[in-house]
């Protein structure tokens, strides 16, 4: 994707953030994968005060040292980044041209609410907050829908399971 079209995407993202009604055409044009399978169903079995919680976000946030998400591929980047919850607040970048992240740069909690979740952990509302969280870039399309659901999302699910996470909160952008 050329620099001009990346700039165009960023401009559109800014306009849509401030005038949400403009997004309607965008939403209609983008046809997400439609499910015909049974909806997976695993309701929580323990009180939240005994659960370990992790966050998965599709806001394109990552640490400075990590490879940025690929903004050149029109089908998006289906890879993920592991986020260290203890350091991300002071060490983050957002790579995502499809939304205006200037507010999220002012306060990361609006896309990855780790400060709020830490407060809830201290109050005993949540049993334990995981150290590792996961970040994707949303806006996956075309051939990468299969990469996401068949590979990278499965890998993250397995990592969360190995980390004995009981509950996952997902936040978009």
């Amino acid at each position, binding site marked *: 994707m050329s620099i001009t079209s990346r700039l165009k995407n960023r401009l559109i993202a800014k306009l849509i953030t401030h005038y949400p009604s403009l997004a309607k055409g965008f939403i209609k044009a983008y046809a997400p994968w439609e499910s015909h399978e049974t*909806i997976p169903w*695993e309701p929580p079995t323990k009180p*939240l005060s005994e659960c370990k919680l992790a966050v998965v976000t599709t806001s394109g946030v990552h640490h400075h040292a990590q490879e940025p998400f690929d903004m050149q591929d029109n089908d998006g980047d289906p890879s993920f980044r592991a986020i260290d919850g203890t350091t991300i607040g002071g060490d983050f970048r957002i790579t995502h041209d499809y939304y205006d992240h200037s507010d999220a740069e002012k306060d990361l909690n609006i896309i990855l609410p780790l400060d709020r979740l830490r407060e809830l952990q201290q109050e005993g509302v949540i049993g334990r907050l995981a150290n590792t969280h996961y970040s994707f870039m949303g806006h996956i399309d075309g051939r990468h829908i299969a990469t*996401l659901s068949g590979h990278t999302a499965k890998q993250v699910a397995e990592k969360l*399971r190995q980390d004995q996470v009981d509950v996952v909160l997902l936040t978009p952008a």
Partner: protein
Amino acid sequence: MGLIQREIEKVGIASIGVSIVREYTEKVQPPRTVFLRWPFGHPLGEPGNVKQQRAVILEAFRALYSITIPGEIVDLPFRWRRHDYESYVEPGLFEP
């Protein structure tokens, strides 16, 4: 995002998603969702608005325990920049 949520739930982990585009969520059908008609890039609200961010998280937890129909979407009553969070009553215990 809903696709990822489905894969997470498939390995036995309970999940709750925040959505700001109801049309996508209706198509992808993740197990449980709270929806807000808010601008892109602001699923938890405005920068620095601690009460607002906390309210969204607590409502997500409430939905995590109260949704009984797979694929259900709960529409949260918070209006963008027009909601008074001072009068928000926090839910009690989150238990199955």
